[in-house]
């Protein structure tokens, strides 16, 4: 169980994070500079909140009465460049936490980790003598060996081997350990998490189950962060999208590129402006009424049934329930 509600002022920027979930795998997703690393550092104790509370699995790390120092929080922290100590060999790096805490080494666990992470033949080498992937795996072993209360992953997979993410998930299951992954890679967040929290301008603006956030976000800012390209303000969208007015409190309407399809009976006419090919699909940029751009994602298997070229006129359509009605976070909270 993770229950966090903290505030921190750093150089005129106000950070405010609030999340409460029973889920064990959380991804904090957001653009660079949105305060994701700051959040992890506040949880780890590397930075102290101005006020609020941090409760991880019943362990109160911080509240208005006390703040547990970093070295007593037992947080497994994996930073972006996985930072092994350069003057210690891999074995000393992995055992550092056990020695620092003066606890006896669980040899079975140590052997399990080094075998699982395939680093048993690197133990006597120094970080500069091993590959990036091996350094990454050694840092994971080091974080897991201290039997942490939570694992904090600060984009540790952005640099290298993506398959390590699966390995980490396996180790998390095995250790029955909660984890927070900070990332700006949406696929990574979806692959890893049960719950996604959206980081925007130093705040968690919304969080929830992965499906809920992906298909039914609350804010226009979330839709932007999720890289949804078709976002129009509500009044404009009403003119060219065939939907019934729902609630006048909404500010924007959005639809995912993959939720739009080509259909001869489609209610919206679209002129193709540009076609970009990707591995599994084509991304079509089109022009609809009112000179508005629309982006459509059509799988390779479907597109062969249509004549698609720059300048072609096509009919497009979508399911009504794939429309997302959004509010402006800034308008309400600024």
């Amino acid at each position: 169980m993770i229950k966090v509600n903290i505030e921190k002022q750093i150089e005129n920027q106000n950070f405010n994070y609030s999340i409460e979930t029973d889920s064990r795998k959380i991804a904090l997703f957001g653009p660079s500079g949105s305060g994701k690393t700051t959040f992890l550092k506040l949880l780890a104790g590397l930075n102290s909140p101005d006020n609020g509370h941090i409760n991880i699995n019943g362990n109160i790390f911080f509240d208005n009465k006390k703040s547990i120092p970093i070295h007593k929080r037992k947080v497994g922290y994996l930073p972006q460049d996985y930072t092994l100590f350069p003057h210690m060999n891999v074995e000393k790096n992995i055992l550092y936490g056990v020695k620092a805490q003066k606890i006896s080494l669980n040899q079975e666990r140590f052997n399990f980790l080094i075998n699982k992470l395939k680093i048993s033949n690197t133990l006597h080498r120094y970080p500069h003598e091993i590959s990036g992937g091996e350094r990454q795996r050694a840092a994971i072993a080091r974080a897991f060996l201290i039997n942490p209360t939570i694992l904090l992953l600060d984009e540790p997979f952005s640099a290298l081997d993506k398959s390590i993410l699966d390995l980490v998930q396996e180790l998390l299951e095995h250790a029955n350990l909660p984890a927070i992954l900070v990332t700006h890679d949406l696929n990574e967040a979806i692959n890893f998490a049960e719950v996604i929290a959206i980081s925007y301008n130093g705040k968690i603006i919304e969080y929830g189950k992965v499906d809920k956030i992906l298909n039914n976000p609350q804010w226009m800012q979330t839709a932007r962060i999720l890289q949804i390209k078709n976002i129009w303000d509500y009044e404009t969208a009403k003119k060219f999208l065939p939907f019934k007015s729902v609630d006048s409190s909404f500010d924007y309407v959005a639809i995912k590129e993959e939720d739009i399809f080509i259909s001869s009976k489609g209610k919206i006419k679209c002129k193709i402006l540009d076609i970009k090919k990707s591995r599994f699909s084509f991304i079509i940029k089109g022009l609809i009424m009112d000179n508005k751009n629309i982006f459509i994602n059509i799988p390779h298997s479907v597109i062969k049934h249509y004549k698609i070229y720059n300048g072609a006129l096509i009919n497009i359509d979508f399911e009504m329930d794939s429309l997302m009605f959004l509010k402006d976070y800034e308008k309400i909270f600024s």
Partner: protein
Amino acid sequence: MKKYSVKLVTYLFFSFILLIIIFSFSNFSKKEFIILLKDKNFVRAIIFGLKTSLLATLLSAIFAIPAGFYLARNKRLFDKIIDSLFEIPIIIPPLIVGVLLLNFFNSQIIKSFYNFIFTVEGATIAQFLTSFPYTLKASKNSFELIPTIYEEIAMTLGASPLKSFIDTTFKLSINGIISGLILSWVRSFGEFGATLLVAGGIAGKTENLSIYIYKNMIEGEFNKGITASLVTIFLAVIIISLLKIFIIEKQ
């Protein structure tokens, strides 16, 4: 072309320094060397020089390493001003440090507490003040090169803040710190102006090798002065080489 011209300049420069040392050997005699070794004041000057310079280096370690750490981590305007002011002893002649220190030690307040003039303590402080910037600069530069993330990781793994610092930042900076301490020590060992003014250069009591050599030279004992200088160079080269081999290379 550029590579060769740089090489030529380096070799010429080195040859010039070597020439000066070799030239000194023309006045070196075995007889003079034996006389020198039998001169109690010479041996005492070495001991006094070693004692005061090592104590001054110890003071540098106690004060300049923490100050270097503080200035590496704190970059506010006031800290930058302090950083610049700490360079004053390098910029001004040591003699002026001696003048200021003598004036300070001569004040009634200090005198009522302890009389530093003509003492080992006074000479130590004089040498410390002229040599600490080398330790401070080297420590600060070394600490600046080590990212704080190592300490942070060590703390998340359960090490106390002090242990985290010693195990990571300090150990990773140790080469630079030792180089700074060696420079401070060498500077203290050869210190002249400030030590002479504060400690008075009393033969056999408060004179170090530099003062001993200077006094012999002005008394016309050229050969003795040159022989003592060569012995000093020999000692310095031996000690620095040993330190480099056993401490820096090992690191």
